[in-house]
């Protein structure tokens, strides 16, 4: 499986898309995680949120639901919705690879969120397509002798991480 590499340009584009989605859907928070539970980007009031845990639990949730889907003969359930007393969470899978999460309250509605997410999904799909191509290109560059920033990692670098 290839590594996932995020470059500045696409990172900015992703942030723009989810910022717009947050405004259009009148959501509190919008974030993107990959299916392994790593957070990619977030917009909104993240201060009060433990985003790392959110990312990991979201990925676990989607993974468990994917497992359920396969058991009943579906490829995946591309959308999950959790309704709370105040806040709701709308989760959708983009390009079978990353997960888009929208947290919203009574200032928005499920219908509005669903509509705006569909539009954002299409834009995100295009961006992740480009990222995939770049990762492939990067890989072939490295094979032909490109200097990765990690090519020179030494034992000492790693020992330093564990010093205290």
């Amino acid at each position: 499986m290839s590594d996932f590499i995020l470059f500045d340009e696409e990172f900015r584009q992703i942030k723009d898309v989810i910022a717009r989605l947050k405004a259009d859907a009148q959501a509190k928070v919008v974030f993107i995680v990959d299916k392994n539970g790593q957070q990619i980007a977030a917009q909104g009031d993240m201060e009060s949120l433990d985003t790392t845990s959110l990312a990991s639990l979201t990925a676990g949730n989607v993974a468990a639901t994917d497992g359920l889907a396969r058991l009943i003969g579906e490829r995946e359930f591309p959308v999950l919705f959790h309704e709370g007393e105040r806040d709701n969470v709308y989760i959708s899978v983009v390009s079978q690879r990353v997960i888009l999460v929208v947290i919203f309250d009574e200032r928005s509605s499920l219908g509005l969120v669903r509509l705006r997410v569909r539009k954002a999904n299409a834009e995100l799909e295009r961006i992740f397509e480009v990222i995939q191509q770049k990762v492939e290109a990067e890989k072939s560059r490295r094979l032909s002798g490109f200097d990765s920033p990690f090519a020179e990692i030494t034992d000492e670098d790693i020992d330093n991480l564990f010093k205290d």
Partner: protein
Amino acid sequence: MTFINYAAREINCKIVYYGPGLCGKTTNLQYIYDRTNPAAKGKLISLATETDRTLFFDFLPLDLGTVRGFKTRFHLYTVPGQVFYDASRKLILKGVDGVVFVADSQEARMDANIESLQNLDKNLVEHGFDLQTIPYVLQLNKRDLPTALPVDTLYRSLNFKGEPTFEATAPLGIGVFDTLKAVAKQVLMELRKK
């Protein structure tokens, strides 16, 4: 699958603690959590049953510091050890960068160790990984118990490729950080090859 974020200059890696039920996977994470400086760790999440058996996974994010200008972040996961949770176990191995196998040193758990190791092998293959090549460390836990088998015996039965092996007593922290360091090192060294 390492996630390299050039925009934020971060590397994120995923390490999974595997092993039979009650071998001490969660205890390893708990000890790491307790002994890590609060600035370097996130919340320890445990999806457990009411009797504290892992139901889905435990999760601990750790910031280890900077390597070559990149912040290194490790996400530690445990799997549920009980045999019947295999579907969940499989999900957690998705995108793994390194595996720690926590073996229970007691003679009575030897069959369970071997069964779990075979299960790990099988589940890794399903995700396209190979136990022979993935960064991997063996931990012989519960060395303090009187029923623990000699290290030699365990080594012969469980070590299959000369992987780094550590004796541990997880609740006291013996061997816990050595194990983590050894697997983290292999994962980062792996980046060199890519």
